[in-house]
């Protein structure tokens, strides 16, 4: 029996209602327990900030397009390289690090669970292969349904049960976790070089609208009783004036779930633009936040942009092409038959660019203007807004008005005219940061019941101990210390075992992959539906029997089973 | 040099690729395709053996006519015979000049050699287990 006792920890555990108190944490066999025996190994936390392991509910770290981001960018690979050392493998890359690079960096920051934001079902095997090479985090995969022909046909036929059946079959087949819609309808239109420009545009050939896809999938999701809600990347990402689309989308969301949101809107920053061109782009964060505040059924993540170079990558193929025409740098695109698309381009967010400054401000504003931190999660849509290694800096900006003011002096001078940020006094506290970086994620993803995001007995012993003493420092003034502290834990503990210490990775690690399987009545099982099978064999280029991801790809799979309400 | 050697895949080369020590592979990999007019010029008949020489080395091949080539170009499927002629200079791209090696071609009575012979010429020891 492996036992570990953490003493004198300054614990914030929002899901357990602990808002900051000195406590001991007892661990046995990877789980939190009431107490340990006399022989437990002891870590003295010395009053340091101790939180459940960080959870990133939207990040791009594994799979086809992420790896293509590496493949096409030797210049990014050489920008961050470490040698093989001890238990650590070689790492390369700055904005799109290698799998081990991602894993070690997340681990050093106290993150123990990461959701890959977009997995094309046809290429799911690839995502799972990379998951196993990301050893320090438990992984989950959002599964793309935005351009899924079978879904759109069900939507057209107003057959929500059929849509649910497609989702159930696909998630189980590809070992996915949740429904992801990226620019719903737009990725199919992009198959012929087109896009949709509002939620009421008709998707060519299929005769459905993004709004109908979103509505149907929300209901299908709840019929299947999946742990997470629909995870939506709204239409019109990055387009000036797109906040209208975002508002319209949020307005439609019914309140269907008691314990979590009904719709998760990811990287909200990219969807909160006013103006009509890049010249008059402005922040509409106040409108978005007001809407979110009024709709507890919605949760968002920030999609914060930070200055510097990065790589953008998304299933939103048409958006990336637009971005390519602006930047004229490299452009990769990868459409996936019957399912979705994707695009990748490198970008540089500059303080000299008004547009970039406005984007930077919007992310922070959304976090500061959303009243309930459980509704707004901290993210950069890694690596789209910035690599996730910028999280500590974002935390410091949210906790310190002084830091924001100091930053404002470095921005393009007109920025203040286009954004409300510098009129906002709010400074987030330790508790709110704890919510926004783990507890809210666990709740939003629906994984608290498998012991994620909290430290109550029975929970997974995923713990981050930061070299920060909340009782001694003033984050508003000492923001640099906050930044440094969140950048490198004293200890990151994964399933009861110390995996990194003071920035040094100390074990090879072995993670789990969390997936969902909804049980549906046999008559809705598509694997024996002649119509579905026929179309599959006709239009896909792989045989249906070669499509599902075999169990061997999930050496430590954790399946969350649900019963569909059908 | 009077011809440009182009190399590429053929379906027969692919078929025998895992049986490189068989006569069938040897036959395919040592076949040199040449424009018929070039053959006439040099008094080469279909099936004749020729000595093909580049700056890197020389190897005996068997000529077949090809209407699909331009004059001055010859084609040999990729493999050890063609590679006996191709240089290892890559222009710092990693890729040798597989598509444009200048060669001289002269008729010969010498026999075709086997893959094992070629590898022995490179310093290897033939395995015939």
């Amino acid at each position, binding site marked *: 029996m492996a036992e570990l006792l953490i003493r004198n920890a300054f614990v914030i555990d929002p899901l357990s209602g602990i808002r900051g108190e000195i406590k001991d944490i007892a661990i046995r066999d990877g789980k939190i327990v009431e107490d340990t025996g006399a022989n437990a190994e002891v870590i003295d936390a010395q009053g340091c900030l101790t939180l459940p392991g960080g959870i990133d509910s939207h990040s791009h770290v594994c799979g086809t397009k992420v790896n293509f981001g590496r493949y096409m960018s030797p210049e990014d690979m050489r920008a961050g390289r470490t040698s093989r050392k001890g238990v650590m493998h070689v790492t390369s890359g700055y904005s799109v690090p290698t799998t081990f690079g991602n894993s070690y960096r997340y681990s050093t920051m106290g993150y123990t669970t990461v959701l890959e934001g977009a997995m094309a079902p046809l290429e799911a095997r690839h995502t799972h292969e990379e998951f196993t090479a990301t050893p320090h985090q438990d992984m989950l995969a959002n599964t793309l349904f935005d351009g899924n022909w079978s879904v759109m046909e069900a939507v057209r036929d107003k057959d929500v049960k059929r849509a649910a059946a497609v989702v159930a079959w696909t998630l189980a087949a590809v070992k996915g976790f949740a429904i992801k819609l990226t620019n719903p309808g737009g990725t199919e239109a992009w198959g012929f070089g087109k896009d949709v420009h509002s939620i009421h545009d008709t998707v060519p050939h299929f005769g459905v609208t993004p709004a109908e896809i979103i509505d149907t999938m929300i209901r299908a999701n709840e019929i299947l009783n999946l742990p997470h809600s629909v995870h939506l990347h709204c239409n019109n990402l990055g387009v000036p004036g797109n906040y209208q689309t975002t508002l319209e989308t949020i307005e439609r969301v019914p309140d269907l779930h008691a314990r979590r949101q009904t719709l998760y809107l990811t990287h909200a920053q990219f969807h909160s633009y006013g103006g009509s061109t890049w010249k008059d782009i402005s922040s509409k964060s106040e409108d978005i936040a007001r809407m979110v505040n009024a709709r507890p059924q919605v949760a968002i993540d920030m999609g914060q942009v930070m200055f510097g170079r990065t790589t953008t990558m998304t299933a939103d193929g048409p958006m990336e092409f637009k971005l390519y025409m602006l930047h004229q740098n490299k452009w990769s695109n990868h459409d996936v038959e019957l399912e979705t698309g994707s695009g990748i381009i490198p970008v540089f967010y500059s303080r000299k660019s008004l547009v970039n400054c406005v984007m930077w401000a919007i992310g922070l504003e959304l976090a500061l203007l959303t009243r309930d931190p459980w509704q707004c999660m901290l993210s950069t849509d890694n690596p789209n807004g910035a690599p996730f290694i910028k999280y500590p800096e974002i935390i410091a900006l949210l906790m310190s008005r002084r830091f924001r003011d100091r930053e404002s002096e470095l921005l393009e001078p007109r920025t203040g005219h286009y954004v409300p940020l510098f009129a906002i006094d709010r400074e987030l506290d330790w508790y709110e940061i704890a919510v926004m970086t783990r507890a809210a994620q666990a709740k939003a993803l629906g994984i608290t019941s498998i012991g994620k995001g909290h430290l109550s007995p029975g929970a997974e012993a995923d713990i981050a101990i930061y070299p920060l003493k909340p009782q001694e420092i003033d984050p508003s003034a000492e923001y640099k210390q906050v930044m440094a502290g969140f950048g490198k834990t004293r200890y990151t503990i994964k399933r009861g075992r110390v995996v990194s210490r003071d920035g040094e990775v100390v074990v090879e690690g072995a993670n789990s992959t969390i997936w969902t399987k909804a049980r549906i009545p046999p008559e809705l099982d598509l694997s024996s539906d002649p119509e579905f099978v026929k179309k599959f064999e006709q239009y896909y280029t792989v045989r249906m029997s070669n499509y599902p991801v075999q169990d061997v790809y999930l050496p430590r799979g954790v399946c969350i089973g649900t019963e569909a309400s059908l | 040099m009077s011809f440009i050697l182009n190399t590429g895949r053929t*379906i027969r080369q692919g078929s025998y690729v895992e049986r490189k020590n068989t006569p069938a592979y040897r036959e395919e990999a040592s076949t040199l395709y040449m424009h018929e007019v070039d053959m006439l010029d040099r008094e080469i008949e279909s099936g004749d053996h020729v000595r093909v020489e580049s700056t890197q080395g020389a190897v005996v091949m068997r000529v077949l006519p090809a209407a699909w080539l331009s004059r001055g170009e010859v084609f040999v499927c990729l493999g050890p015979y063609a590679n006996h002629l191709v240089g290892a200079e890559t222009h710092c791209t990693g890729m040798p000049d597989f598509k444009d090696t200048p060669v001289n071609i002269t008729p010969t009575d010498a026999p075709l050699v086997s893959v094992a012979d070629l590898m022995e010429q490179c310093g*290897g020891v033939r395995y015939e287990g």
Partner: protein
Amino acid sequence: MKVEDVVCPFCGCLCDDLVVEVEGTRVVSVENGCTLANEKFLGDNRLTSPIRRAGGAWQQVSYEEAIEETAAILLDADRPLLYGWSGTHGEAQSIGVHLGELLGALIDNTSTVCHGPSIMAIQEVGHPGCTLGQVKNRADVVVYWGTNPIDAHPRHMSRYTTFADGFFLTDAFLERKVIVVDVRKSESANIADEFVKIEPGGDYAVLAALRAIVRGKRSLIPSFVSGVSREQLFRVADTLLGAKFGAIFFGLGLTMSRGRYKNVRNAIELTAELNRHTKWTISPMRGHWNVYGSNEVFTWISGYPYAVDFARGIAFYNPGETTSVDVLRRGECDACLVVASDPGAHFPRACAEHLARIPTVQIDPHVNATTHLARLQIPVAVTGIDAEGTAYRMDGVPIRTRKLFTGRYPSDTDVLMKIYDRVKEEKGHG
């Protein structure tokens, strides 16, 4: 026993609809396969046990001895090269990369003499591509440039392009236009709607001209560009612009000819330019069935798709410097492990000579040209026949190959893992 939906481990098409009949430890028939597939499945030219060269003769050795000796050779080397990888499954490739980092070795895959230049071009300008089903279901114009699928990828046209009916094209052969561009009139050119014959080495100029035409600069174009008439260039450009969905597939005619990756870059930039008007994608015709997998695996572990040098602990990449042909030509490496490929046959003579000079170990099921150059060969199971594992199709779609029977050979994974463990034992964690 008949096994359905078998995945073919020959070319990058990775056809997965074969029906293979197995009797005991032998394949007796193959349905749906092309000639190449049939030869692969029915082929019976296995090396039966590990062999070692002792002076001028060969002797059989045990697997244990062979593995021990391989580890010793690699540990003894100051600049070992681990080459090949495209003919095995991803799990084995992964062990290979980790072995490389442990040893401080150079590791390279067969892209180096295949689509390496395509990767270099993609690293300059990106890659607007798609999965093959997009082409099958949508493409009304298909271009094959410097590639001859009929010989190299025999079912490409019937599964994905010319003859493949799709969702938006119910009679592909009639509705789809096929253009072939090559320096020679290949078999594939014979069935094209339009054949563009280019002078050798002229691809770059022709692609540049097409880019200019697509941008509306027709007046600039001389009457002939590398042997192609202005009229034909205009006609081709109009076809490209008139497509609803176009797909370019290119081969070694671009990557191996003069200009190398700059040819590919020009083709990619033409594709990007065309996307301002209509939908176009471009894809390399990858050769080995799992060469793309080796690029993927190398990339997620090391950051680079091929030609990775771990000599300094970190991963360093620079084709031309860290590529196998260059390293062998310069006589740099002092030991070589060849896995699932045949550099003896497919590298220039000077490279084969260096392989013969240094201790070369080959892990491969068959006797091939490299066998004669090696000091040691360890036979393994053939992935897709008596071993299984992950492969990536030419368009990046990962498919799990099947194991049709359990034979007497260990898999690449088994052998490599033992070598890795042995090396790790010697090196420790440090």
